[in-house]
């Protein structure tokens, strides 16, 4: 296969290119007119946005030669009971996917992403906060808008009422950022009472400096159950942006578990709306950064429907000269009576030049609310370290054990045994731990 889009293009070039469809060009023009996020924008100040306007945004029309082999090498062991669907540089690879698409999954052709009804949801049409730029789309969704304009292919997972599905979607970035960008697009719809175990991975081919701009939208209807695992382990030279927009129906229960440890710089935006009555959201996230990595996340959870519950747990470790940032914005709208919201943010500084920024924000417009939050940034506990050393344990091992202990709670929530083993091994490797994590459980 040949690469059908050989000319690398920036956003402005794409918008004015004759090869771009009028709908896509209009979306891009709108996004450009409103402006890309900058460090001056509230909620973006810790992200690495350097030279975003000069970045190549053009996607590939077909998978590049050699990319399948490179992507195959990056794939982890399959998960028992899960159907695997693999995308390479934003394009579906039947070769790497486990046979036919499952009944719940369909591919969305280029240009149709924004046209799929209902998938943007109120998070887009009714901006969560009055920060919408002149483009009408809030700044948090601008990259999502660009994804909708540029994604070559998307995946739609629709689980019918009362049905169950277990799907693993792997997005592998395999092409150099100087050649093309990858725009993974995933739209998930859970009908009433549906259950979905979803594993979403972002991986990179070895040693390629890639650029990804992923977009995930989830609609969880009445009484549905979503267990969503999000794992970002891109290569050490890659740059990654992702946007997740989720909305719940009455009594929907969502659990989202995020482990982000890869990429040179990563920014994760999540806009989560608890619209239904008594819906619930558990959000558990681990971010690890080392060397000069930047790992930034912004999560806004909005209580709209009455009686909704959410718990947000974040654990981050910044080593070397890296930066880990987490901005957890909790909004309780009028009418969200009886909302219950718990937030626990903790970061560990494991390098003398490392940086950790935690920002808990609470915005409450209703009286009857239970809300608690806490945020702490600290170093490895000296007492605990001495305790381990005094038992003869090497300093490097003792430090790794304490870092492990710091994030272990989130890892322990993974109920899929193979995924848990893979994730724990990933965490241990990232912590450069000489510890046998299999024994730690």
């Amino acid at each position, binding site marked *: 296969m040949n690469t059908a889009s050989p000319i690398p293009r920036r956003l402005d070039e794409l918008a004015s290119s004759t090869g771009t469809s009028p709908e896509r060009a209009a979306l891009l023009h709108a996004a450009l007119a409103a402006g890309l996020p900058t460090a001056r924008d509230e909620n973006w100040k810790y992200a690495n946005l350097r030279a975003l306007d000069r970045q190549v945004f053009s996607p590939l029309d077909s998978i590049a030669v050699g990319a399948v082999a490179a992507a195959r090498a990056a794939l982890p062991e399959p998960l028992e009971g899960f159907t695997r669907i693999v995308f390479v540089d934003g394009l579906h690879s039947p070769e790497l996917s486990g046979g036919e698409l499952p009944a719940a999954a369909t591919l969305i052709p280029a240009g149709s992403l924004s046209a799929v009804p209902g998938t943007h949801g109120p998070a887009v049409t009714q901006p969560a906060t009055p920060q919408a730029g002149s483009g009408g789309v809030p700044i948090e969704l601008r990259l999502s808008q660009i994804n909708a304009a540029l994604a070559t292919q998307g995946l739609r997972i629709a689980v019918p009422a009362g049905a169950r599905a277990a799907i693993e979607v792997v997005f592998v970035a395999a092409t150099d950022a100087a050649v093309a960008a990858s725009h993974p697009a995933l739209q998930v719809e859970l009908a009433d009472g549906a259950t979905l175990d979803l594993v979403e991975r972002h991986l990179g081919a070895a040693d390629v400096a890639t650029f990804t701009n992923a977009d995930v939208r989830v609609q969880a209807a009445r009484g549905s159950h979503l267990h969503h695992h999000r794992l970002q382990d891109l290569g050490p030279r890659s740059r990654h942006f992702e946007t997740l927009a989720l909305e719940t129906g009455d009594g929907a229960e969502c659990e989202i578990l995020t482990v982000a440890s890869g990429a040179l710089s990563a920014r994760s935006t999540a806009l989560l709306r608890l619209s239904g009555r008594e819906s619930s959201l558990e959000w558990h996230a681990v971010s690890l950064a080392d060397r000069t990595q930047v790992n930034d996340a912004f999560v806004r959870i909005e209580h709209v429907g009455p009686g909704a519950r959410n718990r947000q747990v974040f654990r981050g470790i910044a080593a070397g000269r890296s930066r880990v940032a987490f901005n957890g914005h909790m909004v309780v709208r009028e009418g969200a009576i009886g909302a219950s919201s718990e937030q626990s943010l903790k970061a560990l500084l494991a390098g003398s030049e490392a940086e950790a920024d935690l920002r808990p924000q609470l915005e409450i417009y209703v009286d009857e609310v239970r809300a608690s939050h806490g945020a702490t940034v600290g170093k490895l*506990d*000296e*007492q*605990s370290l*001495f*305790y*381990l*050393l*005094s*038992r*003869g*344990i*090497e*300093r490097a*091992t*003792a430090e790794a*054990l*304490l870092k*492990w*202990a*710091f*994030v*272990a*709670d989130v890892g322990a929530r993974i109920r899929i045994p193979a995924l848990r083993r893979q994730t724990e091994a990933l965490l241990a490797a990232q912590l450069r731990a000489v510890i046998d994590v299999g*024994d*730690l*459980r």
Partner: protein
Amino acid sequence: MLSIRDLHARIGERKILKGLNLEVGAGEVHAIMGPNGSGKSTLASVLAGREGFEVTAGRVEYLGQDLLAMEPEERARAGVFLAFQYPVEIPGVNNAYLLKAALNAVRKPRGLPELDAFEFLALVREKMKLMQMDEAFLSRGVNEGFSGGEKKRNEILQMLVLEPHLALLDETDSGLDIDALKVVARGVNTLRSGERAIVLVTHYQRLLDYIVPDRVHVLARGRILRSGDRQLALELEKRGYDWVTGAAA
């Protein structure tokens, strides 16, 4: 085995140990007693290598080695064990992992092979029985949610598993009820042997009813003010520390 000469130590600007001398031979059990703030815990911490304590003068020789020049983990591997006054909780790292890692760390320099999972479990089970501890403790986080007494038992369990040459017990009796005290004392007594030395740091005489020391020292104002045998502890119980500290003033 342990020879401390003219030891001076401070925390920040505060001088705590001011010329402490102590000789502990193999096979001996020594009790260090003294009023609050006399420097007992500082002594234990300095010997184990805790950060934040600065040794400004003096020497500590342990089995012919310069103990103060060794890192805390090297001391442990050379057979020094400190039972903490306040054992820390480390959720996420289970007791079994810590015990096994610690045991293999001290076995290596002794030229012993690593224990496999079965040998390890058999050994630990036997010691846990002695300490009247439930096996469920093994799979829990280190000291996580343990009561004060359970933490102290866990310290002694670790000591029994690691079989140190020199055991330092820092106020192991504090916070124990009489039954727990007996269990802890029995654990310590099983370790008494000709090639092992035990130093008990304690505020009260009570522990010494169950672990009978060979020597008793009174530490106050940063020095050993008086040494004697078991009788000294009984005398202290009757007459209070003022009797020694006042007389030496």
